[in-house]
């Protein structure tokens, strides 16, 4: 196969912008669909994509992927709400549909194994065993697993404007210092205000 493995992988998952370690010092080649929406907004209802029940499953899954230890975990960072809001973007409709289908399956699986306990109340080991089964490819689960892991990392290490990475604590965990808004620091403008390409009047 002549084209890069990483991109082939992205092609298969083809749901999120699983950005390849791409060339030219760049960082995003295979993206998925559409524009971003859902900048955090206090007026949004508490949940926009998931029911309370599915949200509980989602939260527990994210927390297992990125558990709290001496550093904050997924729930501390606001990852589940990030995912809930992000999936309201029409461009991520196929991801939303997939998660709405698979998360209840994950929960049913837990209830079967634990004589009735929902996923979010199962023991950590049981939760992990269920996730591991998805990771290793049950029912096309690799794609569920890859997507939920990517979304969790987006929610933990993405721009806090979307409601995840709360307080920039995800950035702090990995030692990343975000760039300040440069345009505010500009002292020169190449085009006069109002001109095409220039600053607004």
């Amino acid at each position, binding site marked *: 196969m*002549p084209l890069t493995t990483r991109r082939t992988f992205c*092609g298969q998952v083809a749901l999120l912008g699983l950005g390849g370690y791409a060339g030219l010092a760049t*960082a995003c080649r*295979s993206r998925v669909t559409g524009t971003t929406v859902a900048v955090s907004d206090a007026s949004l209802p508490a949940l926009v994509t998931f029911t309370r029940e599915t949200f509980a499953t989602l939260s527990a899954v994210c927390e297992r992927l990125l558990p709290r230890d001496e550093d904050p975990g997924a729930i501390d960072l606001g990852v589940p709400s990030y995912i809930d809001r992000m999936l309201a973007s029409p461009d991520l409709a196929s991801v939303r549909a997939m998660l709405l289908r698979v998360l209840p399956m994950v929960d049913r699986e837990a209830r079967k194994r634990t004589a009735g306990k929902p996923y979010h109340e199962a023991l950590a080991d049981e939760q992990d065993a269920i996730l591991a089964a998805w990771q290793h490819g049950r029912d096309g689960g690799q794609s569920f697993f890859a997507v939920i892991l990517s979304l969790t990392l987006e929610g933990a290490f993405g721009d806090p404007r979307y409601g995840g990475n709360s307080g920039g604590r995800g950035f702090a965990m990995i030692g990343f210092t975000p760039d300040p*808004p440069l345009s505010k620091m500009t002292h020169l403008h190449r085009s006069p205000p109002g001109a095409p390409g220039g600053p607004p009047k």
Partner: protein
Amino acid sequence: MARDPADVVVVGSGAGGAPVAYALAEAGIQVVILEKGRRYRDEEFDHDEIRMCRRSFFTPSIADEPHTLRSGENAKATRTTAGWVSTIVGGGTVHMAGYFYRFHPVDFALRSTLGHVPKASVVDWPIRYDDLEPFYARIEREIGVSGVWRAHPFEEPRTGDYPLPPLAENAVAREIDRACAALGYHPFPTPRAIVSREYRGRQPCMFCALCASYGCEIGAKSSTLASLIPAAEATGHCEVRPECMATEIPVDASGRVKGVVYRDAAGQSAFQPARCVVVACTAIETARLLLLSRSARFPNGLANASGLVGKNLVFSGESKGEALFERRSHPDTEWLSDTAPFAQRSMQDFYWLDQPVGGVRKAGTVVFALAHPNPILAAEHIAGSGSAARWGLRLKQALREEALGARTLTFETFAEVLPTPGTYVDLDPEVKDRWGMPVARITVDRHPLDAGAAGFLAARGREVLDALGPDASRITQEDGQDMVLQGGTCRFGRDPATSVLDVDCRAHTVPNLYVSDSSFMPTSGGVPGTLTIMANALRVGVGLAARFKAGRI
């Protein structure tokens, strides 16, 4: 809606389109640029990884406008986002890394240097390096390129210095210099399309954490949006029409193009008449537009009497590797705590191999860079993928160790990819875009020699990384192709039977049609080609302006 005729319509505002528009407008010729993408003001760019890198900010979504891709003619083509560069005013120059090397003289004469290469359609260019040199020099000045003249023995012949001094570099540059000196290699500061000082009213680079893959909100990156487009507009002879997608280039009874049919920002079909049309939509999309423009005169697509439109597609050969340096095993290593973002070193010792290695005579360029600091991407990289992905406490531990406790230095290589008859663009027979137009189908059939060049360069890159004493190193990609670096679908040449364009990049069979993006390049070269696209486009624009002045259009 019909419009007043323009002298020239340029389709596409990126590396291939803007220099032509600038040269024409400067000569007083009325130009309209039709550009499919939106126009952004500088301050609308930000460094939000989710918005810029992980959704379809720069390129169409796979649902609206896919490409399709197959490996060989017998494979089934599948939908992909690969092969898009950027759909925005300024094209791919807006969010590029801006590694801005010139081609070397050998790149213009590959056939006569290599001789016949079986199973490859290698040809010489109809111009020489010396023909392009003045345009390289001028375009470097017009847009602002920084670098160091005479920094290494393998440099291409230049008639003058760079217009700007090199960008400030991370302390790792000195380490690379030391390692290379011990190996007998000759690293040099990477030339960049980023202004290192205030330049023509533009602010100098502020050395962000994130640059490549992002637009620059202060115009320090030398995109056409920051340089040539405002300069062309300032003449009063150039109008940029964003969100206008060309859909067809119709011809009159005599076989001359009449103008361009496009879908405007409101989604309405419109027509812009013109005396001359210049197409610069990227090698893949230019081929698509010409193939979509069928007429009684050109039943197989505009300018395609030879059947060569879309053929001889080339990308740049690409391999990559990385090395991890843990802080605890390198307590005295200064660069590990240097926050300067650019490693700024390249190597061209193996551009041309005097002694062929495994059949390879021409390799290319190695560039070193600090790992891209995109936080989500870095976390994904540390997590890994598939069955091997790490998660839970193991992932958190790994994140702390690798992101906080270590730094990664990478290399990337650009090698010749030999053109083959089996690598081309045509119209997909089934898949259509959201508006019902057939999409471009990309068929790839790699030449067996490509792997040798990429692998040889990868081994050299890794050798240098290993000489720096990392805790671990690996080659992450042996033999890939970088599909944002395209060329070849409308070769220029002297013979209408073997090329689509003449030496001036005018269609052999359509006297008022030009193509000025990477499509003209018959071979890929051993560097990323954008500076060459721009220099050539300036040459085309200057030639076309002269033709106008002489009343020959």
